[in-house]
């Protein structure tokens, strides 16, 4: 090549320069810290629908008596507190309203609270790694994960002297979920009510020739409904489905929402006493197989397409669009449906979640939900705790229910709420008395890993790439190894 001539080398260099700018241009997108920050999929911490958290329902008269004695003991200038959550939009706006209430002023005094929404793992983790966490956090991480790794502040002493936060005011399961190895690290707040119901669209059910008044109780019956409710058009395209068991609560395997399938089948997948996983068993294999049956009726690709139809990863979107007839979901589904599509809400029926034939008749309910936690490295534990107390007051709960449909785990508050506010809400209220089996939270502290295993192996099974027995064996092995690696085993 003729390198001697200036024009030539100019052009080459120009080319290089150009290349460089291409690099500059296209690289940023991939190389620069654009990195994460995408909402982890529905399964990640909290995202399990930062469902409305019902700030604890304030009970009836309690706060008025309580607050004076609480004596926020604020200094003349208040403390600035930071509270990070994964919820955004209306939840953050709700705080604007909450901060205007009398109870807020009484409890919080001069302290200034900043609520920052849309905070997920990639926001919490760097802050924690640098020793710079907010004062309070909720719904942006798996609580147990953080409890086990010692970044949350034990609050037993603060609870002991609190006049507002009392064990007896909470649904037992929720209260227990705030404990890890005997110490309490959070207070159920914001959104912590029931998770389990089978919801179906009665008009779609009727059109399929089924009786909407006799809902299916076992998985076999649900599968039968599913087969009749799944329809294709003449070109073989999917027009509607019955149930996607991996959708919403049906596919959850984490402490906040429970391991629905495990509860339905009636086994516990991890035992804290022995520190061992129990996944390599027939029931787990049966879960994979049963769920796969639903997918076989629809076709895996078509089902995946239907799921992505749920509005870019939202929950239950296809239910509102009336292309999905059934869903296993929690109490928030009532308010969401009402807000998104009132006509669908009107015909929605809520009933007990399906169980196996062997457990026919069991009426299961899971007291899952969110907590508000204090971070150890925060400097203002006493003041921060007041936020947790405030969330238990009636004004806070009312506002959150109003704006987000969140409910707290406080039976006394629930009595002040009209259970017919949204169609279907009464089912959950009635569950409090009618449920025969209250599921327990499984204290697994590698939540996201386990959930990811459940999703990927389940997919391998329903796509026919793997036998369910091999899948559960692999799941047992992978989870055990991961658990060993954390050094917490």
């Amino acid at each position, binding site marked *: 090549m*003729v390198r001697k*001539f*200036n*024009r*030539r080398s*100019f052009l080459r*260099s*120009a080319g*290089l*320069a*150009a*290349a*460089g*700018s291409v*690099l*500059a*241009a296209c*690289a*940023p997108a991939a*190389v*620069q*810290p*654009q*990195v*994460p*920050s995408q*909402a982890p999929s*529905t399964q990640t911490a909290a*995202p399990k*629908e*930062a469902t*409305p958290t019902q700030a604890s329902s304030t009970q009836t008269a309690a706060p008025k008596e309580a607050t004076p004695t609480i004596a926020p003991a604020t200094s003349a200038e208040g403390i600035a507190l930071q509270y990070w959550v*994964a*919820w*955004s*939009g*209306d939840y953050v706006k709700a705080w604007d309203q909450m901060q205007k209430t009398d109870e807020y002023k009484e409890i919080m005094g001069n302290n200034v609270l*900043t609520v*920052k929404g*849309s905070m997920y793992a*990639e926001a919490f*983790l*760097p*802050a924690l*790694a*640098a020793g*710079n966490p907010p004062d309070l956090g909720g719904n942006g991480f798996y609580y147990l994960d953080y409890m086990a790794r010692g970044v949350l502040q034990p609050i037993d002493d603060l609870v002991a002297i609190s006049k507002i936060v009392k064990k007896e005011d909470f649904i037992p399961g929720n209260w227990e979920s705030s404990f890890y190895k005997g110490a309490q690290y959070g207070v159920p707040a914001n959104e912590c009510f029931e998770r389990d119901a089978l919801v179906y669209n009665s008009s779609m059910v009727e059109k399929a020739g089924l009786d909407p008044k006799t809902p299916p109780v076992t998985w076999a019956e649900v599968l039968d409904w599913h087969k009749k409710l799944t329809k294709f058009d003449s070109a073989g395209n999917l027009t509607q489905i019955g149930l996607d068991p991996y959708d919403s609560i049906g596919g959850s395997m984490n402490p906040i929402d429970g391991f629905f399938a495990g509860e339905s089948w009636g086994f516990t997948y991890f035992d804290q006493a022995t520190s061992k996983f129990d996944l390599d068993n027939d029931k787990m294999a049966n879960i994979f197989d049963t769920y796969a049956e639903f997918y076989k009726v629809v076709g895996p690709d078509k089902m995946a397409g239907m799921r992505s139809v749920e*509005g*870019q990863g*939202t*929950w*239950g979107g296809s239910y*509102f669009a009336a*292309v999905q007839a059934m869903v296993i979901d929690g109490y928030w589904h009532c*308010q*969401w449906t009402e*807000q*998104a*599509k009132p006509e669908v809400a009107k015909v929605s029926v809520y009933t007990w979640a399906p169980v196996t034939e062997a457990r026919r008749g069991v009426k299961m309910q899971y007291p899952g939900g969110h907590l508000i936690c204090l971070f150890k490295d925060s400097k203002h534990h006493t003041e921060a705790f007041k936020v947790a107390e405030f969330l238990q007051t009636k004004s806070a709960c009312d506002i959150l229910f109003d704006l987000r*449909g969140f409910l707290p785990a406080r039976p006394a508050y629930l009595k002040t709420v009209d259970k017919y506010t949204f169609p279907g809400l009464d089912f959950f209220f009635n569950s409090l008395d009618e449920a025969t089996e209250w599921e327990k939270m499984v204290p697994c502290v590698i939540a996201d890993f386990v959930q990811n295993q459940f999703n990927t192996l389940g997919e391998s099974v329903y796509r026919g790439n793997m036998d369910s027995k091999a899948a559960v064996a692999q799941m047992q092995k992978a989870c055990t190894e991961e658990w060993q690696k954390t050094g917490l085993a």
Partner: protein
Amino acid sequence: MSFIVENHRKGGIEINMAVWKFTSAQKAGTIKPQGEKQIVTTPGLVIRGALKYAVLIILSITFVLPLVWMAVSALKIDSQVYTVPPIWIPNPAHWNNFIDAWTAYNFNLYVFNTVVKYAVPVTFLTVASSSLVAYSFARLRWRSRNFLFAICLMTMMIPSQVTIIPLFITFKHLGWLNTYLPLVAPSLCGDAYFIFMLRQFFLTIPPDLSDAAKIDGCSEFGILWRIILPLSKPALAVVALFRFLWAWNDYFGPLIYLNQESQFTIALGIENLRREMEQIGSRLMAYPYLMAVSTIVTIPILIAFFFAQRTFIEGITLTGIKG
């Protein structure tokens, strides 16, 4: 100075023609008689032209389609979004979405923050510092040069996910958290991509120009300032454009370094809207609002590009190559 440039200009063209003839004769092996095929047949030209336009138009439609979808979706309400078949012309069209979406978050403030506190300073600093460093790698002769340049290039190959945490810790120790410093200060140190790019541009400027200046007693910095930079204007313009865009769209940096809503940038506002869309019930109208804001945010850049194309594309006349 211009006299020298002029000479190069003229000399270069003749050399290039000679070069082309030489290489093409080697490759083609045949040299057709001159003048024979000057006039191309008209029908062939028409067909080729028509084909070209057809391809262009089809491609343009394909390219523009998603963006039309974006703009059109901005005019919808939720019930018009999740429909089968999809609606291309919403009726009624909700033009107020643009205003509602823009005020859903404090986007005016975000724009101010993004432009004044982030994009403009960072662009200016990047151009300045990258030029300095590129000059060093291109125009100065020193022993460690190639070695350090190779290191510089290698820094582009580091996946950023794992440097985030230590970097965050560094900024924490510097006390820069919750400010724009972590976003802007590093641009004082140049950027590997732009250093690379400018280096290549600088390499193309004939060394005779610098030599002549040196003989006249010019310092290195003077050479950079008076000769190299003026000749590199288009390259600098490209650097500025891309760096600006990069800052305009940057989401992750602002996410982890800025805590107060009053400091937020456009990208953060958009991302918040997007997350809300994922939480049904969190906000109604999240999808149309997201599309509306995105449309508003990209239109100015598009217009700017449309009018400034010449600078970037046609302005590279470093030494009058086109003759």
